[in-house]
């Protein structure tokens, strides 16, 4: 006899591999996943209800043009950042470059400068009334151009490649190089035939990261008056043309999905394994007469990506502080920034825990899907998230629409993946035997969570919270679109004041953001 209830129960048990989670855990993680899916879903829904005419109009003219702009920009930045990042990583990890240990740090440091702040700095230096013009009497390089945008974005994204490929290079066992050398290969051949193939998975991952960043960047692109999908979407929303914005967003999401698809395919294809447990540290290659040119390159990159922008900001900040830029207003913006970013960080830590716990302790199709949805925000550009939240809140939660509550909501969707990653990494270090011992000692699943899991993963979650905090602090497009009138944050002030060339007011806020970004970067470096 078939009993429907029991066969349903059996199916549920099989789905969870005989280990179904409790209702509270599944409910909280599932709700988080649904909330993270809200922006993309409503953007898609709105774009589909837009009607053929609107789609046709945009597909005929605007979308091809934006596609061209966005793709060429992403391709150029990714290519140059990859070459630069790999080259620098090789110099620092494999050669006898003077000061290699210090450069490992210094060349990663530009990560703390948000690209839109970098753009402001380069407008000050290379803009139409910039320092370069004052010194040379004529315009040296037009920063408001395609190559200007490429330059700025490259300077602040190459560290991703540098860090990821540097870590990969460091982990290559020296035996492989020694074997190649014993077969009569020279340094260049070893690079092409040994180092580069080993680095390829890492380089692929880093290149994807850079392309995703370029696709989603709004601040630097907008400040340099270039036009990509993100800026087009932003100005449509600003002009209350949300439907067109939704259509453009869907096009951008499709592009993002293609890039992610490439990553999945590339990652699936090859894997390299170290063949030996014995690990020898690399033996540095002698640069010889190339030592000076190499050093000059490293210095030039460091100067362009860190010294120059930081110098400009310090100069204008000191001018601004002398003129009273740190008045009450400034601290009000800072408090707003810190307040919403802290809310987002707290929420992200609380929401990440059920998701990572479910994924780690109750593996199944369902928990995998929940995790994937919860981390989908990392591929969503800020403008798209903002648009989706505008749709959702104005329709279903109108009492919250127009309050500052939308800001932490957008930050959580966008940056929750960072908390999930760090929280998950630290939960992976906690053996499932801990849970089982606690259960055998009489703890209910809820008690296991609070007496064992929470104390053990708190360090990882706090790190994730710190990353979310700093990312939220820097976030620009969603903040601009979602803030209630009169609710200014540090990033909003940088945008507004730099737009009006009030650099002495923008610089202190930019410096504060940079200083607050340093501790999490230290953590990232320590992990690599």
């Amino acid at each position: 006899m078939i009993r429907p209830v029991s066969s349903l129960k059996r199916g549920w048990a099989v789905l969870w591999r005989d280990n179904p989670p409790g209702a509270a855990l599944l409910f909280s993680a599932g709700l988080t996943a649904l909330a993270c899916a809200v922006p993309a879903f409503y953007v898609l829904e709105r774009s589909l209800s837009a009607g053929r005419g609107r789609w046709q109009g945009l597909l005929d003219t605007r979308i091809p043009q934006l596609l061209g702009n966005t793709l060429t920009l992403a391709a150029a930045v990714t290519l140059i950042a990859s070459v630069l990042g790999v080259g620098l990583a090789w110099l620092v990890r494999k050669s006898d470059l003077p000061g290699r240990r210090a450069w490992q740090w210094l060349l990663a440091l530009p990560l703390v400068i948000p690209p839109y702040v970098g753009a402001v700095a380069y407008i000050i230096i290379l803009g139409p009334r910039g320092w370069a013009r004052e010194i040379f009497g004529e315009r040296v390089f037009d920063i408001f151009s395609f190559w200007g945008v490429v330059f700025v974005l490259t300077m602040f994204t190459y560290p991703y490649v540098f860090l990821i490929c540097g870590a990969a290079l460091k982990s290559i066992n020296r035996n492989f190089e020694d074997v190649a050398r014993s077969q009569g290969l020279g340094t260049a051949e070893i690079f092409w035939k040994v180092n580069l193939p080993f680095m390829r998975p890492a380089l692929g991952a880093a290149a994807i990261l850079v392309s995703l960043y370029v696709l989603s960047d709004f601040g630097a692109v907008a400040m340099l008056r270039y036009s990509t999908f993100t800026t087009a979407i932003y100005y449509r929303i600003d002009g209350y043309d949300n439907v067109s914005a939704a259509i453009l967003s869907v096009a951008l999401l499709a592009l993002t999905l293609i890039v992610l698809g490439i990553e999945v395919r590339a990652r699936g294809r090859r894997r390299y394994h170290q063949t030996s447990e014995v690990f020898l540290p690399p033996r540095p290659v002698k640069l010889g007469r190339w030592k000076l040119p190499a050093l000059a390159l490293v210095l030039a990159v460091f100067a362009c990506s860190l010294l120059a922008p930081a110098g400009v900001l310090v100069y204008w900040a000191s001018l601004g502080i002398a003129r009273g830029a740190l008045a009450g207003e400034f601290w009000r913006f800072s408090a707003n920034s810190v307040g919403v970013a802290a809310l987002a960080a707290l929420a992200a830590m609380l929401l990440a825990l059920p998701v990572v716990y479910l994924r780690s302790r109750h593996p199944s199709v369902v928990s995998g899907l929940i995790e994937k949805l919860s981390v989908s925000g990392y591929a969503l550009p800020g403008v798209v998230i903002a648009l989706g939240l505008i749709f959702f809140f104005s329709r279903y939660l109108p009492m919250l629409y127009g309050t500052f509550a939308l800001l932490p909501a957008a930050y959580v969707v966008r940056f929750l993946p960072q908390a999930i990653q760090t929280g998950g990494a630290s939960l992976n270090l906690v053996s499932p035997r801990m849970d089982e011992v606690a259960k055998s000692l009489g703890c209910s699943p809820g008690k296991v969570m609070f007496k064992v899991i929470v104390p053990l993963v708190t360090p990882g979650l706090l790190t994730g919270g710190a990353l979310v905090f700093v990312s939220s602090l820097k976030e620009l497009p969603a903040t601009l679109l979602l803030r209630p009138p009169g609710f200014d944050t540090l990033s909003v002030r940088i945008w507004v004041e730099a737009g009006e060339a009030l650099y002495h007011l923008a610089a202190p806020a930019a410096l504060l953001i940079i200083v607050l970004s340093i501790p999490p970067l230290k953590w990232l470096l320590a992990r690599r």
Partner: protein
Amino acid sequence: MNAIQVENITKTFPGKRSPAVKEISLALEKGKILTILGPSGCGKTTILRLIAGFEKPDRGRIILAGKAVADDTVWVPPEKRGVGMVFQDYALFPHLNVYHNIGFGYRGKDRKERIAEVLELVKLSGFENREPHELSGGQRQRVALARALARRPVLVMLDEPFNSLDAELRGRMRLEIARIIKESGTTAVFVSHDQKDALAISDQVMVIRDGLSQQCGSPQEVYRFPENSFVANFVGQSNIMSGVIGEDGRSVETGLGVIPCEHLHDCRPGEKVEVSIRPDSLELDERGPLLGRITCLVYTGESYEARVDFVGEGGDRMSLLAHVHPERTVKLGDMVRMKLLPEFVAVLGCRPATCQVPRSAGTGRGAAD
């Protein structure tokens, strides 16, 4: 009353074709120690996890202290079973010190006294404030055991407890853990792949292979009278030969001649059987009936492990492993005379092995119905 009784449990993991555990039954009286012995991947840890409640059996019944905790209709979650666990990696909570680790699940009013009592039992009084990372391997293990014992569990189960200890410590901890368990009066189930662990500490040994029980009995029974060639080879070394039960019903006719044999496994005269001959039962003896040549010789310190080629009555050669006392001087290629001691010769079971639940264990309603 049995502290633990398992009746015909079967468990197949989702996505796997063959069951990890097949129709396993066992019973253990209060205060006794059982070791589930088998090679890695044989399903022994799954049995442990089924009893603890970390896995659900597909069929069969588990009864703890007279109360069913898992069968077709009943399911008691691990936190309500009162089974203490000691894992291979000990799983001490790294955020708690020894005192709080041991007191973790204890809810009685006499918490302090009870913790002091079990610390005394495992001889770690004074270690209350140590953090787990400040302890040695053996101390960690004793803390894990103390933690499991603190709640006075119906049953304590230890999963490969000696695996991560070095050889010297392993021997000492074996006796120490057995002492603690006996002294506390607890019933214990060990899981091990090491026959020395199993023989040294157990009242009962259960040998498992591919999820199936091979033999169940006291250490002496399992070693002296193995049911089948797997048990004979897994628990110690053995030579397996074929033969026929003699007319007198007390001996076996083999290629080496008629061997007196103590344990015939109810096989009838004339039946074809396999015989297990332990290397210890071959002894050098100048007047012995067997003449053979040493073809391989390994010195282990405790003895020589010699492979001796005999020529049987029918003219066929047989190669047997023998243990030679290390004080005897033997060389490779030597012709030696040996005799057979009947104590360690056993006829292997000629019928499929079954693991009997003792009579007192109850009705034995299984999953077959």
